[in-house]
């Protein structure tokens, strides 16, 4: 045994060493660049590259929403329906990062899709819906997010509003794939009992409404659609009448902060469990601002309402970022001294040198509350 194992282990070891050495030669030959800088010219989606994707198709969904199909790089690790991906895309030459829910389950063709609704004055959403073209390279992160189904519950209620349908449609499509012969019934979704309460301004403005209606017609979900123009704006407390067996269901909700807050209050009062996904943080009244100083000595004026991330980016400081709403931790940098204020709840985080030690703070939801010094 040992005689057969040892040579192969040694060979693997040698192979590894050889690879290391080849890598070192390649690095020595490309300095001050790195070998990847040259490989990226020819194969930006290869394994080992920074994670990127290429937009392959863009389909309009409504007048102001579109689905984008992306071929992710070889290192894409897959996702669970309901999760989101962060996308870095150049708009007017400027790299912008935003989060978008994945609107399919894992697909047989290995591609991923997102559905974007253009918000008024939205930099990225308008670009994607109205300007982006197939062939464009985008930057990606691996899928993230906790808004996913667990197997321990088969009576579910989804409450979605507007583009909040996106993570839910990803889950539903995964549970009930639709084919030319209609909706497939898979063993994994056999015992499920699903109600979807979907709120939208109007029927034509409702992304994925045809998919929801088809699932309803096939009898795999019960769709309760509420259109503001037809039914008036939904009072969330009416949900008890819309879904009488609410208490026996686990609720998943995704939509604007107002709706989610109301639903949370409702479920809290009723002692019910609620899983939410939020696209945008709600904010409290801003406080006093201050200044923000970076490691290279640059000091910027920062008001109390603008996230430090925005302040820094508008002065061309290179900042890490992600969801831009306080959930992914993609934007944390070390605060050496000073205080910041959480724009979501007004909470102050302060760092006193020699006392608190350096703290890492999220720059996307914190504004300066005094003069801040960052080690970045």
């Amino acid at each position: 045994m040992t005689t057969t194992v040892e040579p192969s282990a040694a060979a693997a070891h040698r192979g590894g060493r050889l690879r290391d050495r080849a890598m070192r030669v390649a690095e020595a030959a490309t300095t001050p660049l790195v070998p990847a800088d040259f490989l990226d010219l020819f194969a930006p989606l290869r394994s080992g590259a920074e994670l990127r994707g290429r937009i392959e198709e863009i389909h309009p969904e409504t007048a102001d929403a579109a689905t984008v199909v992306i071929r992710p790089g070889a290192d894409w690790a897959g996702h669970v329906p309901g999760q989101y991906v962060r996308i870095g895309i150049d708009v007017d030459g400027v790299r912008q990062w935003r989060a978008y829910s994945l609107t399919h389950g894992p697909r047989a063709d290995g591609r991923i899709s997102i559905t974007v609704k253009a918000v008024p004055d939205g930099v990225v959403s308008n670009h994607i819906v109205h300007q982006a073209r197939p062939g464009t390279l985008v930057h990606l992160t691996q899928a993230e997010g906790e808004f996913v189904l667990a197997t321990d519950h088969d009576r579910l209620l989804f409450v979605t509003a507007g583009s909040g349908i996106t993570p839910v449609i990803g889950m539903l499509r995964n549970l009930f794939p639709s084919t030319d012969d209609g909706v497939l019934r898979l063993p994994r979704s056999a015992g499920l009992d699903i109600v979807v309460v979907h709120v939208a301004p109007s029927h034509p403005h409702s992304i994925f409404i045809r998919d929801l209606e088809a699932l309803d017609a096939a009898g795999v979900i019960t769709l309760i659609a509420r259109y503001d123009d037809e039914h008036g704006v939904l009072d969330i407390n009416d949900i008890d009448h819309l879904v009488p067996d609410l208490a026996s269901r686990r609720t998943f909700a995704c939509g604007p902060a107002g709706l989610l807050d109301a639903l949370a209050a409702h479920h809290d009062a009723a002692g019910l469990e609620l899983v939410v996904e939020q696209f945008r943080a709600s904010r409290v009244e801003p406080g006093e601002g201050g200044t923000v100083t970076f490691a290279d000595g640059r000091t910027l004026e920062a008001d109390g309402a603008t996230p430090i991330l925005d302040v820094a980016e508008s002065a061309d400081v290179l900042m890490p970022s992600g969801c831009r709403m306080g959930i992914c931790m993609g934007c944390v940098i070390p605060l050496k001294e000073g205080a910041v204020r959480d724009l979501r709840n007004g909470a102050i985080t302060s760092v006193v040198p020699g006392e608190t030690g350096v703290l890492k703070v999220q720059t996307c939801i914190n504004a300066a509350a005094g003069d801040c010094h960052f080690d970045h």
Partner: protein
Amino acid sequence: MTTIQKKPATGERNPIAHLTEADIEAIGVELDAIRQSVLDDRGASDAAYIRRLIATQRHLELGSRVVLLFSAFPPAWVLGTTGLSIAKILDNMEIGHNILHGQWDWMRDPKIHSSTWEWDNATPAAQWKHSHNEVHHTYTNVVGKDNDLGYGIMRVDEEQRWHPFHLGQPLWNFINACLFEYGIAAYDLDLGATIKKKQHQDPAFRAQAGQVLRKIRKQATKDYLVHPLLSLPTGSFLPTLAANATANVVRNLWSHSIIMCGHFPEGVETFEKRSIEGETKGDWYVRQMLGSANISGSKFLHLMSGNLSHQIEHHLFPDLPSNRYAEVAPKVQALFEKYDLAYCARPLVPQVYSAWHKVVRLSLPNDWLATTTPKNLPSQLKTLYAMATKGPKVRRAAQARLTQLARRQAAASAPTEVSAAA
């Protein structure tokens, strides 16, 4: 009266005597407006420009290095060396210099950002950014403050006292040109001053020197070891080594020439330290306008010079993307004309000649070159020999005679010359 008017350019005439304080402020306002107009429509096509250029440079470098693997074959040597020289020039000039200025930071691309970029040059980007962006661009052409002015080894202005040492400056300048990247590394380190002040034990200096040596080692390993070794199978070790050396020298000579043209030609003003005390934004702009010179020429020349052929525009707006300088140049030139200022621009060859002429002229005592004619050459040489070999007293006396001679010659010659100098 602003400071720049009180104590303007050194030398005898004041190129901005006709400007009022309000004029200078108005110039500042107009230049700010030009800058803003570019910022307002900076966008996708600019980003596409720099990305395309970087990709082109990398293809060219890779292609040239591959061709050089067969450099024992002379046409391959010529082709590969030409390509590699151009690739290194693009890397240093239009790409590296401008990215390190932060011209492309607005794209928020971590790969094309002044805080992360590194270039094919002996001096580490971080140190160059300090000496170039902070010192040179702030103290442009201020004698004694701006190291780029003569790199601390040359006499750059009549006001600086002449010393026999300066006779060698055309030679120093040529050697500096050939080894320019090392010269830059040395003055980014402030090597001369550090040695003079015996501060080479200083930990900060040692750390920086360590970075420079590491950078030089990596660059040399690539050019003079790894690439030649990879060419060994075709028997091309030495030719590839020579190709890399050639490309480095070509890059050095070229970048030195372009940079000399920026601040050295005749007609470019230098300033005294005192002249910049209390300087306003308008004063600063005017100093940049008068302290820089352009090279006129083709699109290819602008590209290869890293658009430092638009040195005036670059010094006014160091953080605007370089691909926009050509477009703002006519507006800047119109402003020069409006305020009756001299926009110093010549084609490459006259501009390089002019810069070298100044180096040679200042290597000699003031007025020596101007007063020398074929007829008086022997006596002039005798004077020069005396000045070079005898003490300061002799130098002072001889200098006084030269100045007098120059004045007499000027008075004797046509009055046009007097009005031209006025």
